[in-house]
């Protein structure tokens, strides 16, 4: 790969806290006000700094609850960090996930538009990609039937096709998706691989499986209890991670 120093993602000293207070109830606040005094804070990400150059594939590993998904959501802009800065340098971003805002009573075709618009695409852009999405999803005539009549496999095929074909410059993947039957699984894996390895695209993958990450990623970030434990190439980090986890 050519030496490009252009940054796609810069994460600087990011801290994300969850306020562990349940919802307030007006009635309970009046009747039992003392119960609502305590607001525990839980810090999921405790000051993480890293950069991803454009075109690179970063894998994030870590045990459950180490803050991987939280960090990914923060990069996707779903919620903002409590401290620190995440700069995407103006790139478009999407979190590859299943079934964003599907309306069950509407047809698959209409749901493609809905999801696409939610991801920030214009109608024209979706029009352009519509046939490709429908073809990739292998739904055939079902595309004009309500989504509620779909089997769960068909549902996830459609969802995958939408996010995979409406591409953004930065893609965030929470667990490499394997959906549908064996044939579609292989196809979606190939598609994802071709998406990921596109030289212009920056990708962040969160996964438990060091095998998948070894196959796909350039560098690995190991998060442990909200902090960076290690960062480096696959060969440096993954063996130590495996050793740690076993």
């Amino acid at each position, binding site marked *: 790969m050519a030496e490009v120093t252009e940054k796609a993602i810069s994460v600087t000293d990011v801290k994300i806290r969850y*306020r562990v207070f349940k919802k307030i*109830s007006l009635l309970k606040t009046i009747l039992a006000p003392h119960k609502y005094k305590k607001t525990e804070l839980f810090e999921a990400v405790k000051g993480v700094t890293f950069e991803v150059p454009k075109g690179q594939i970063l894998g994030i590993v870590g045990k459950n609850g180490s803050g991987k998904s939280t960090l990914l959501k923060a990069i996707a802009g*779903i919620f903002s960090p409590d401290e620190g800065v995440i700069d995407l340098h103006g790139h478009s971003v999407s979190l590859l996930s299943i079934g964003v805002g599907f309306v069950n009573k509407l047809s698959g075709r209409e749901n493609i538009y809905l999801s696409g618009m939610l991801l*920030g695409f214009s109608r024209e852009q979706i029009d352009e990609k519509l046939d490709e999405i429908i073809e990739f999803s292998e739904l055939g005539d079902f595309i004009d039937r309500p989504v509620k009549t779909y089997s769960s496999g068909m549902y996830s095929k459609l969802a995958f096709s939408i996010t995979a074909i409406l591409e953004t410059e930065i893609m965030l993947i929470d667990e490499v998706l394997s959906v549908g039957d064996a044939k579609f699984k292989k196809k979606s894996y190939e598609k994802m691989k071709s998406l990921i390895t596109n030289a212009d695209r920056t990708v962040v993958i969160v996964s438990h499986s060091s095998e998948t990450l070894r196959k796909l990623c350039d560098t690995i970030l190991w998060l442990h209890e909200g902090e960076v434990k290690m960062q480096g190439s696959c060969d440096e980090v993954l063996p130590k991670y495996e050793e740690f986890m076993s």
Partner: protein
Amino acid sequence: MGRFIKDFKKFFNYIVFSSKAELKSEVADSFLSWLWWFLDPLLYMLVYSFIAVVVFKSNVPYFPVFVFLGLNTWTFFQKTVKAGVKLVSSKKMIVTKVYIPKYMFIFEKIGVYGFKMIVSNLLVVITMIGYHVPLTWKALWIIPISLVLVTVTFGVTTIVMHFGVFVEDLLNVITVILQLGFYLSGIFYSIEPIGEKIVGRVPAPFYEYLIKLNPMALLITDLRRVLLYNENPHWVMMCVWFFVGVVLSFVGTTIIYKFENSYVKVI
């Protein structure tokens, strides 16, 4: 403010498309469910006619049109505000997966209930023709009145939506307040006297306060004034409430921008 306009432009297509989608999915179940958009106000009008004419001996002219105007306007406001309370958690699927300014959901609801209001207002047109209500240029006032209605509704809903995320029993409180609002907005009775013959149901100095302080009472009264009784609206109060609506919307969207990224952590 700049951000609001930019985001609104960006998501405008989504608002329109998802409003249509919601209306469509309502109709998708049974082909005739759109008939209920007419039947609902029609049946309620009959109920209120019975109460007002038979029980309270009302003699308001064009009574069915009078009720339709009040009911359709109120339903729009009431449904939007009520939907606002649980709006963020009802959109959990979206909120946890992509970023969207959360007040866009309010615009979506305004689209849905606004469309229904327009459809049910066909009843107003039909009954007005039936009663040969003389229409004057004053009917054009419905445009600014609708603008005030949408602004106030949006403003109130932004605030309600924000607190609805954190306060779990807000819906109970809002439901009661809305019920009170319903009775205080003169849906099936006239708050102020109409012409010289018909007395209002609210005694002398109080009806003026009620109309000034309750925006829904003001809007509904003025809609009737301009459409049925060839009178001018309270345009000064209209301006005041438009201003209040704008301020509420401004405060509401600012709060939402500030806190919306923690909504995900609560729901």
